């Protein structure tokens, strides 16, 4: 009988902001802890503002990560700059930790000429080559075998680097999940598969996604390490990614991390969760468990943080954000060239002809 191995959920900082008895607390400098907490708050400021912006029709779309911030903020922090990150989409905190400026982030939402993607993608498709932050792509799961490939590249080039990919629990159903973990397992690629198990994939709860006892046990099928952690505990997240990174670099192969968390926000601005779940029954308990509460408690107890500081910081973020939005709204959209370029390294004849055709048409219409 193929019983799933029991995998305890690792927690270091509990819901009350206390360290769990006997837990090995990872070393994190105090100023880093403060800065990580600030990043979590910053994500919230950005998320709630941008959600409103979408409602006002000023951006086309948005996806908040309310309740899940510790996963991406913590995981990105545990990595080194030479490590690559393959995001899904709901990991804006990782981008901020990596150093993506608010301006670039907001430019992407507007798809203006300051957008690194040259205005080509929907909002929430950030990325930066300079930061080893792979540009978000909508098709679910495609980044998983890609991450395995990059990790293998690091290995054969003997780099001191790993590749980490984020994905939701819903995405583990894709064939590409299977492909990526299996390849990484066979080649012992230094990859980290970080699953944000936030309970829902749009309207679909995890028990209709898979009959597996949990996500981490899926590691067994690939001969790789699998761990479960409290994804709302920043310490556990950092600890798990650090451990996975060390294993990977020692040549012990990839790790699948299942971070238990909850999507307190709607799936996206197009979604209405009230149609499929109950705010009281489903979301309720998780509101008490979200990652900022316990971290705030902890920092306050340690005298590293105060309500005043929080207000100030939120204001700072809000201001920086509003500035970025103002700049973005005043930045023209990308030049028409951006429509045709980057299909190849140069412009083949058909695109040259088509571009001319479009320009002629627009001129005729007085649009240019």
């Amino acid at each position, binding site marked *: 009988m193929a019983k799933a191995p029991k995998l305890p959920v690792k927690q270091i900082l509990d819901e009350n902001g206390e360290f769990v008895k006997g837990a090995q607390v990872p070393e994190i400098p105090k100023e880093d802890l403060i800065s990580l907490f600030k990043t979590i708050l910053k994500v919230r400021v950005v998320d709630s503002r941008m959600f409103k912006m979408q409602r006002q029709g000023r951006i086309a779309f948005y996806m908040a990560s309310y309740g899940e911030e510790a996963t991406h903020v913590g995981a990105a922090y545990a990595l080194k700059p030479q490590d690559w990150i393959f995001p899904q989409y709901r990991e804006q905190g990782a981008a901020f930790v990596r150093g993506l400026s608010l301006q670039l982030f907001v430019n992407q939402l507007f798809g203006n000429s300051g957008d690194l993607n040259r205005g*080509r993608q*929907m909002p929430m498709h950030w990325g930066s080559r300079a930061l080893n932050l792979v540009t978000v792509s*909508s098709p*679910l799961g495609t980044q998983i075998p890609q991450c395995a490939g990059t990790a293998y590249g690091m290995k054969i080039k003997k780099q001191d680097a790993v590749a980490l990919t984020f994905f939701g629990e819903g995405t583990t159903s894709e064939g590409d999940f299977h492909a990526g973990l299996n390849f990484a397992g066979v080649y012992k690629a230094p990859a980290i598969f970080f699953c944000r198990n936030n309970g829902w994939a749009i309207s679909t709860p995890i028990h209709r996604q*898979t009959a597996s006892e949990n996500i981490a046990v899926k590691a067994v099928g690939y001969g790789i390490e699998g761990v479960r952690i409290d994804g709302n505990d920043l310490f556990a997240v950092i600890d798990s990614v650090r451990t996975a990174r060390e294993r990977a670099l020692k040549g012990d192969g990839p790790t699948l991390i299942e971070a238990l968390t909850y999507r307190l926000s709607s799936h996206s601005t197009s979604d209405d969760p009230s149609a499929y779940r109950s705010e009281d029954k489903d979301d309720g308990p998780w509101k008490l468990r979200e990652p900022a509460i316990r971290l705030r408690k902890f920092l306050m107890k340690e005298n590293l943080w105060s309500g005043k500081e929080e207000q100030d910081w939120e204001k700072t973020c809000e201001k920086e954000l509003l500035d970025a939005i103002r700049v973005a709204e005043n930045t023209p959209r*990308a030049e028409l060239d951006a429509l045709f370029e980057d299909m190849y390294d140069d412009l083949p004849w058909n695109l040259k002809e088509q571009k001319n055709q479009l320009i002629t048409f627009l001129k*005729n219409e007085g649009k240019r």
Partner: protein
Amino acid sequence: MPVMNMIEAINNALHLAFERDSEVVAFGEDSGNYGGVFRATKGLQEKFGSDRCFDAPICEQGIAGFAFGLALYGLKPVAEIQFSDYMYPAFDQIVNEIAKSRYRSGGQYPVPMVIRTPYGGGINGGLYHSQSPEAFYTHAPGIKIVVPSDPYEAKGLLLASVKDPNPVLFFEPKKIYRSAKGEVPVDYYEIPLSKARIAREGTHVTLIGWGAIHHINMDAAKLAEKEGISVEVIDLRTLIPYDIETLDASVRKTGRCVIVHEAPRTSGFGAELSATLHERNILQLQAPVQRITGWDTHYPFSFDYEYYPNPKRVLWAIKQTLEF
């Protein structure tokens, strides 16, 4: 007759199909409890139970393969792929399996089934929520391809697709899911597959399109009329196997033809239509068949206006054709 939008008409068609035939089942990502992200399957689970309308794991290749298995066993699956941009993981199941099962088994194992999927641009969806990938599937003989253009059409064509003994890909123009409204009979009716519709008669030029583009074409025809140009507008409805008779007849009558689609130009379905119409009617053609299409790029978020064919671009091609 009630007025319905396209989603309502599709939903209504599904309800009727479920009522008439207990072997019809519907599933897809978020299709069950939620009724689909566009709510096309709304109410089916409530009314017919979660055996017959249910959520699928996020796995398009699984959805297509699972539907195949259901169809083999005599059920009539109507699977949903949430966006046609996400149908490619199912490409192998569709092209190598669904399209080939009847043939490879000597007719023993046909797989009558429907895959519904929203497609198309004009909605600020960028690369992955705007694609119009129908042409890929037109090169996979063995499946039928249907694209409705309004609520009435959607209902009748979907019901005919569900009844058809062959696998059907049913591409729904999500751009007009809510904006296209019209009177739709509440009762069951079918619109036969493989019959194009002459939506507007004309004498100077034939204008061919399908789905949401059909409305662009109708608008272009109106613009043209103001300039004294009489345009015959054809809503192709079924791409495979398409209605060659109606196309041939129209092109022979007008001697000129413009084909419009959203997908990139190269190897879009316009290419096949153009090649075939040239081959069959070159002596009657007074100008080469023109194509107005998406550009040979991906769908750029910030250039929706410049990318998506619009009535003026179509008019421009019509005039070029007439001035040739």
